[in-house]
């Protein structure tokens, strides 16, 4: 899993670097300043962070043999992961409604590819956790094979830390980005 995570670091690093290289170079809107909703994304970020907390609690209870608590906390991970996906779905739909798609401008392309790939990772994680929650409920996930959950947990935490970077770089730092410098008068006449 650590090897996979190492390769995924480079994978996401390439997409984040690409986003930064093309940051502020869109010639037509919508621009980040017109479209990004920081309060809503802050809530979804908080949800994902709390899912990581639920993950370590689930692992703790699996290791200590408390089956019901373990199942509950793994289910909390599933629910919080699904809530995060819901936020992302609503955000993507809202952006499309406001005219931003991957084809609209370079911001749309780099934004949707990066956040979309992250969303795909979250989706895989939610399905994985759902299987493990079922396993915990059935009793096949126990203290002696808790490493199965630990490995899934590493993946889940990684998805979380990637979002920490995305939230900072795309949402907080780029949220005031408008047209490229010198282009405002050209674009807006």
């Amino acid at each position: 899993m650590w090897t996979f995570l190492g390769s995924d670091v480079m994978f996401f690093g390439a997409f984040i670097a690409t986003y930064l290289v093309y940051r502020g170079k869109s010639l037509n809107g919508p621009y980040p300043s017109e479209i990004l909703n920081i309060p809503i994304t802050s809530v979804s970020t908080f949800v994902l962070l709390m899912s990581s907390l639920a993950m370590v609690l689930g692992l703790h209870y699996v290791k200590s043999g408390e089956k019901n608590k373990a199942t509950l906390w793994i289910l909390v991970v599933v629910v919080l992961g699904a809530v995060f996906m819901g936020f992302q779905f609503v955000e993507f739909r809202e952006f499309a409604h406001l005219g931003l798609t991957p084809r609209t401008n370079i911001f749309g392309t780099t934004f949707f590819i990066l956040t979309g790939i992250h969303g795909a990772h979250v989706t895989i994680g939610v399905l994985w956790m759902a299987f493990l929650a079922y396993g915990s409920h059935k009793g096949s996930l126990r203290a002696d094979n808790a490493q199965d959950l630990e490995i899934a947990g590493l993946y889940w935490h990684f998805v979380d830390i990637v979002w920490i970077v995305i939230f900072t770089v795309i949402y907080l730092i780029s949220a005031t980005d408008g047209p490229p410098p010198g282009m405002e008068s050209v674009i807006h006449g």
Partner: protein
Amino acid sequence: MTNLWRKLTYHNGNGWWNLPHGPSNELNPPHEGPIGGVWLSNMFRTMTHGGVAHAGPGFYWLIGAALGIITLLEVWLFGVEGLGGWYVPLLLGLSALKFVGVVAFFMHLRFDHRMFTYVFVSAMALGILIFVIILFLAEFGHQPPNVF
């Protein structure tokens, strides 16, 4: 097919992907601490009531609360006027704090077999190097055109 799936995904001692048996396999391994020296280990020991390896749920709640507070702080900074050149470094610093918090306390990297640290840290260093090279090229090399 079922056997193949089990071998690929289960770690019960019969799979193909058996990992080295490290302290993280134990319920109460002998040590665990964040990245850092003695003072951090002592602080960790104090906060985990004895420092017996994996922290308890209370400690995890504490870390979760800290991560939430840092996120709130970031959002608050977003609305603060007049930070000027401090805005981006402050946000990056807070983001790094959250990153380290999750990796050190939730992911147990320090606690796993040292090989995993080498694998992850070298990949991370390579990733950051590529990241920095791309940004330097974009800044000082040929500028990418304004596209569409």
